[in-house]
């Protein structure tokens, strides 16, 4: 027993559950934060891009193989379907930006926001129309039997979520910090017109940002579908939560989004267990966190490390 009067193994179990949830939130939050960093606008269709990515992965996966067979080929098929899902979502993200946001880039800030909400509604209902509203089961490509250790259990899928989440975030961080394109991206986020004067193709960089954010969302979508099944509204709540995670971490800041996601996942789990918030009010935790952060530290936990534009 410990401070909270909860057995250690149970606490550890909650930690694992919270971290996996957080890893998914982080992956989605990255998309919000990257777009905000560059365009200063919230892409509310992000959750739907995630959902469509998951569907793309699902259909390709079941097209290539029969997952109930098991074996190496299924794992191979799964990797291919994740990659294709990333490509599909990335293209969709770019198209959405081109069609719904670019024409409004000079418009008042409310206009692209409303456009984003519109795109979100359209995509969700299209998905419901074409794929049906029933939940679909996304079979695991591997044996998802629980691994037990001293009363605490973790599933291979949870390990995969944590690992994939970590790899993706590390790769993105390296890309943004270490490559020329990443540098161009940071420059664009600081000042678009000056970046353009320096010979950076701003339109291309913005498309790239949408593509990367959407590809990450597709990965999160497939991981979510494995864990929580596949359905047209899956991106809605996840998208909102990830948006909160991005704000909590400091919107526009990539490390902040990762941190915010993990914090939110842990908060949702431990808020119920330790503070004793009724489980039925679990969703309010995230929104309360948003309100508190906006009141106390509107810039988020990690402040973006650039000086105010003059």
């Amino acid at each position, binding site marked *: 027993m410990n401070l909270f009067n909860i057995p250690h193994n149970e606490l550890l*179990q*909650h930690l694992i559950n919270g971290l996996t949830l957080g890893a998914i939130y982080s992956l989605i939050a990255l998309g919000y934060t990257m777009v905000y960093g560059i365009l200063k606008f919230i892409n509310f269709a992000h959750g739907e891009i995630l959902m469509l990515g998951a569907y793309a992965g699902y259909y390709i996966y079941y097209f290539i193989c029969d997952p109930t067979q098991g074996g190496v080929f299924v794992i191979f098929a799964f990797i291919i379907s994740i990659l294709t899902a990333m490509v599909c979502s990335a293209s969709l993200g770019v198209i959405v930006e081109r069609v719904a946001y670019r024409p409004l880039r000079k418009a008042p800030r409310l206009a692209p926001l409303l456009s984003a909400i519109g795109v979100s509604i359209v995509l969700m209902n299209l998905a419901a129309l074409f794929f049906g*509203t*029933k939940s679909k089961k996304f079979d695991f490509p591997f044996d998802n039997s629980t691994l*037990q250790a001293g009363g605490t*259990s973790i599933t291979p899928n949870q390990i995969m979520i944590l690992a994939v989440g970590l790899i993706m975030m590390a790769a993105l961080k390296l890309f943004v910090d270490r490559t020329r394109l990443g540098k161009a991206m940071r420059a664009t986020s600081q000042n678009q017109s000056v970046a353009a004067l320096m010979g950076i193709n701003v339109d291309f960089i913005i498309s790239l940002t949408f593509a990367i954010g959407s590809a990450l969302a597709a990965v999160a979508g497939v991981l979510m579908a494995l*864990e929580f099944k596949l*359905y047209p509204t899956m991106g809605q709540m996840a998208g909102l939560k990830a948006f909160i995670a991005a704000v909590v971490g400091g919107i526009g800041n990539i490390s902040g989004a990762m941190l915010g996601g993990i914090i939110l996942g842990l908060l949702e789990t431990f808020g119920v*267990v330790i503070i004793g918030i009724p489980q*039925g009010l679990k969703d309010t935790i995230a929104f309360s966190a948003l309100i508190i952060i906006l009141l106390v530290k509107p810039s988020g936990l990690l402040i973006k490390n650039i000086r105010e534009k003059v």
Partner: protein
Amino acid sequence: MKKLLAVLFSFMLLFALACGKESDVVKKGETIKIGFLGPMTGDAGNYGKLMSQAVKIAVEEFNAAGGAEGFNAEVIVEDTEGKVEKANPAIEKLAGVDKVFGIVGSVFSSVSLAVAPKAEAAKIVMVSPSSTHKDLPGKGKFIFRDVMSDALQAVVFGKYLANIEKVKTVAILYIKNDYSQGLAMDFKEQFEKEGGKVVAIETALQGDKDFKTQLTKIKGTSPEALYVPNYVAEIAQILEQAKQLGIKTKFYSADGFSNPQIIELAGELANGVIYTQAAEQPTSQKRKDFEAKYQAKWGEKPDAFSLNAYDGAWIMLNAIKATAGKGANGNLKVDRDKIRDYVAKTKDFDGASGKVTFTADGDLVANIGIYTAENLKFKQLKMFKLDGEKLVELK
């Protein structure tokens, strides 16, 4: 000014009266409309789809047999998505625009409880094929159901677990909707009365997909069994995540489990779950015929609620036929109160689901079956009747 208002009001009154009269007449060449109210889309869409298909068969048969005085019936299907906020406009449409004489529905208890007062006010006979909340029949004279009450289901199951399966400790995980909460609370009360102990009671919201926090807490209390009286989308997630967390207790559920979609979503995990549902009556020829017809027309098997929906539709169509009479200019005169009284008198109606008898309240007189899923198929294990306080097994 006053005069103007008076004139205006008398016109409105006249209009209202005219409308009221109008709704009880089916004009020549028009159809007798009944409604179906249930989730056609969304997570629960499969429930509504299966049941509405059953109602359509009943209406087809009714028309093939000549209808009422040569008037054909028609079913208007309205989608609730299983949500109260979607159901309200749907019932307004059925009552105000379509002016239906009866409604088969609604499917979920929360929705039925919400729309019942409106059906009552519009004098629409409502027969729910699947809303099991104990308060529903008490909502009005026009409200019936041909599915058994949760109170009965929960009481019998509480007694059964404590006295027959001799389970001592149970944890409950229910979703915050009228159906699940009603069952969970009634079950808890009964189970504790029988000397059992509820060691953990956890809740979640409808639409939740992640139950790991609740299940981890439940695991810490190591119960002998877990009672999950929810709908299939949630039960499937719970079964899967419980397995992932290494929970190896027995699982118990209620009739929400009986939708075949559970097999699709949970697969092998559905095997061994024990649940309650209205006792299966000896398979009648009527049921076989209906199932064959359903399979032939829709290419899938009807679930237990579809049998209820089919019977409910027939009960109200029979009532309309028996009470309606030819009016002036070849119109059909329908009396809503008479329909209601006719439906209320239903006794030993020979339906596909078995014999249907309504209590004075409009509730179903029922025996309870204990079922399980075995090799991905549903199977009845035992059958019980509540005789006062005693549980009597029927052979």
